[in-house]
């Protein structure tokens, strides 16, 4: 039924451990992400999901472990390097520029792809102008894709939460990433907004072949849209596999139903 082909391992995380002082956020976690798949990270509050994502895109540096992206070792990944390498992300607490319009916010996602220097951009002449028009065309495609034409010129701060989340996704997409990291894309949304978001994530994955790694609390969503799921609890990996396998895993069940540890 589905036309996209899940390919080779594109991102491999090996024995990642991360601690803040004495607090162990992640302990010896390994899992991989294959090309074109939707990979979910789930787990109870404080399980280390966001930390994991932060490790992947270089916000945190793990004390131990290795990140292998398309065969290259990135033990010391930083944010800039991650962006260069084709990783884009959205945030749990939306990190958009509230005073700027939706359009401008998404345009910032094109920043890395702009070649003109600061002076050229400041006077908006020649190459800078041509370049911006090209980027704008690309951004308009994303606006069309995510159906946010009606808020193009609206300052982000005035938008309802569900739409802000969509703009956040739009900005990440503007980077034309190979791997998209989504931190709770559906938190705080109503049923209809969640359905829309699911459809957009599936469309992105399907149309652009983008690999998606997402953190999500809504089990229905996770089980419906992801190809494989990794389960964390107290910074440890307790399950990994297809949604069905994970659902049947006794450790996962006890973590979620609150059995004694």
């Amino acid at each position, binding site marked *: *039924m*589905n*036309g996209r082909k899940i390919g080779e391992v594109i991102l491999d995380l090996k024995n990642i451990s991360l601690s803040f002082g004495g607090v162990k956020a992640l302990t010896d976690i390994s899992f991989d992400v294959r090309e074109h798949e939707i990979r979910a990270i789930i787990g109870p509050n404080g399980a280390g999901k966001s930390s994991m994502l932060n490790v992947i895109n270089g916000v945190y540096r793990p004390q131990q472990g290795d990140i292998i992206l398309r065969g290259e070792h990135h033990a010391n990944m930083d944010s800039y390097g991650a962006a260069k390498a084709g990783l884009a992300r959205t945030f749990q607490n939306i990190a958009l520029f509230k005073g700027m319009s939706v359009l401008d916010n998404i345009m910032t996602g094109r920043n890395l792809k702009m070649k003109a220097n600061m002076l050229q951009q400041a006077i908006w002449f020649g190459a800078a102008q041509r370049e911006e028009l090209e980027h*704008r*065309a690309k951004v*308009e*495609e994303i*606006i*069309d*894709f995510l*159906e946010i*034409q*009606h808020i*193009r*010129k609206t300052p982000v701060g005035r938008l309802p939460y569900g739409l802000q989340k969509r703009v956040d996704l739009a900005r990440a997409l503007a980077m034309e990433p190979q791997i998209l990291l989504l931190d709770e894309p559906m938190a705080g949304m109503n*049923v*209809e907004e969640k*359905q829309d978001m699911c459809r957009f994530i599936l*469309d992105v994955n*399907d*149309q652009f072949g983008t690999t998606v790694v997402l953190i999500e609390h809504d089990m229905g969503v996770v089980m419906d849209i992801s190809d494989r799921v990794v389960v964390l609890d107290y910074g440890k990996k307790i399950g990994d596999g297809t949604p069905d396998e994970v659902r049947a895993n006794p450790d996962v069940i006890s973590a979620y139903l609150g059995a004694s540890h």
Partner: protein
Amino acid sequence: MSVSQSGRASGPLDTFPRLLLNHAATRGDRPATREKYLGIWQTWNWSQVAEEVRAMACGLAELGFKRGDNLALIGDNRPRLYWAMCAAQMLGGVPVPLYQDAVATEMAFVLTDGEIRFAIVEDQEQVDKMLEIKDQCPSLQHILYDDPRGMRHYTQTYLQGLDEVIAMGKVHDRNQPDFIVGEIANGRPEDVAVMLYTSGTTGKPKGVCQTHETFIAAAQSGVGFDHLTDQEDILSYLPMAWVGDHLFSYAQALVAGFTINCPESGDTVMTDLREIGPTYYFAPPRVFENLLTTVMIRMEDAGALKRNMFHYFMAVAKRCGSDILDGKSTVSSTDRLLYALGNLMIYGPLRNVLGMSRIRVAYTAGAAIGPDLFRFYRSIGVNLKQLYGATETCAAVCLQPDREIKFDSVGKPAPGVEVKIADNGEVLVRGKLLLKEYYKRPKDTAEAIDAEGWFHTGDAGFFDEDGHLKIIDRAKDVGKLSNGAIFAPNYIENKLKFFPHIKEAVCFGHDRDMVCAFINIDMGAVGNWAERRGLPYSGYTDLAGKKEVLDLVRECVEQVNAELSHDAMVAETQIHRFLVLHKELDPDDDELTRTRKVRRGFISEKYNVLIDALYSGKTSQFIETQVKFEDGRTGKVAADLAILEVKTYPTMKKAA
């Protein structure tokens, strides 16, 4: 080349395809259709449109579409859906536009009833609806989609992209260039041009068959009446299935050769309106009301200086604005000066914000428009007029002539239309613009058009001393209170709905001793009102149950009663008791028609408990209702509704 020559050679311009070819030949470079896509307005001129339509027609023919076939069109106002209408007509087929927001089961009815073989739909969403009901519609053989997004994994052989069909048509046209010319030449003005389904206010929808001849006549009458030229710009944003849109965006555009502009999406209409600045505009009262509400809400948020200026100059406009627009000589020069100042500082910018700077003629129809609302637009210099018509009469029966505007009439009969009032008060219409028939319903056709050729509109009305028609209600809705007083529910409901806080109202009173009402508050206006007062609420049901809100509504109802008491005809029908419903009336729950008219019978059955409670003197009533969400799932809403008494006024004698 052959397009223009064959177009001219085919004789009189008495079918829509011939009109199209004529425009391509005479004003080929003028813009015919615009659409905003990826943030930029794309333009197609008349020659390009003719090419596209021709290719589409050939493609359809290749798929087996032939004379007499019906083609369903489902989607928002997209250029290619409009073109598809003409493509079907080229082949002697009949386009049947459907309301795009209808749920699948409602569509199934029309598709079956209209014996649809071909459907052209906008996107994946509509394709999914078609697939859902395909088994119930045995006649449906081909589904074509305009937007290919998300369609990659659909493997059904009866699904095809419009792009491929057009490409196929181009090849076909190259190989047999005479084919389409012959088909167009075969078209006759008395052929059915379009089938529009009635909204179904009274039972199941009926397919109204209109011929090329009638629709062209109706369009010509309107074009002549308002002196429309090929320079007009119109924003096409109303449902394509509605007769009003078909008249303005299709028939009149093809008759006069002006430009139609399709908005980027349903949500961007306000912005698109500003960017296009149409010269000719059509909207139901609801749209004008929403625009005004938005303006008023934003005005309340503005600074004190701006707010005061606004209110001062709006008072000036109210005093003399419409008189100046009507060219009356009674306006004092002080007022003229003030109005000119206001025009510079308030009205001009306001018209610009509303996207109405260039408007020469704006029409409203479909429901009664509040006098205050109507006056507001006219007073700021927008030439807003009312018209009256029905699907069966190509929308235009009566129009308000320039400079003869009355707030409570719908104007004079259009050129070539005869109107008379039957003994029971029903409005009868005769003329060229009447429907040919209801599709496959000879009995209904015979009922609607009598032996002398009068069409029974089902509306009750009367002519005033100047020959203007006034519509008071649906003839069948006009009832009597148990004491014999005339009860026109719509009349009262409209008065209620003219308050910005009230969105819908349903009045009861036929065969009863008093009038009672259900009210729906307007979530936007009342929500804003509540926020201003620091009144917390969680949603519609909660807000509608607040005591403060109920008091607010009660004040509105009392004002209506005061107004009713001034007119001896309706003074008896003041509202005694009312309640505010716990959910918004919704077409998805069958409570409103797709054009948002109240379905009285259905509502009084569904909410029977509430009506009993109103008349039995209870002070509150519990109710639980099933609701349908947009995605087709259902849920329940329950609430304890308070029933309120309202002050009524003694009948006032009007000074002669």
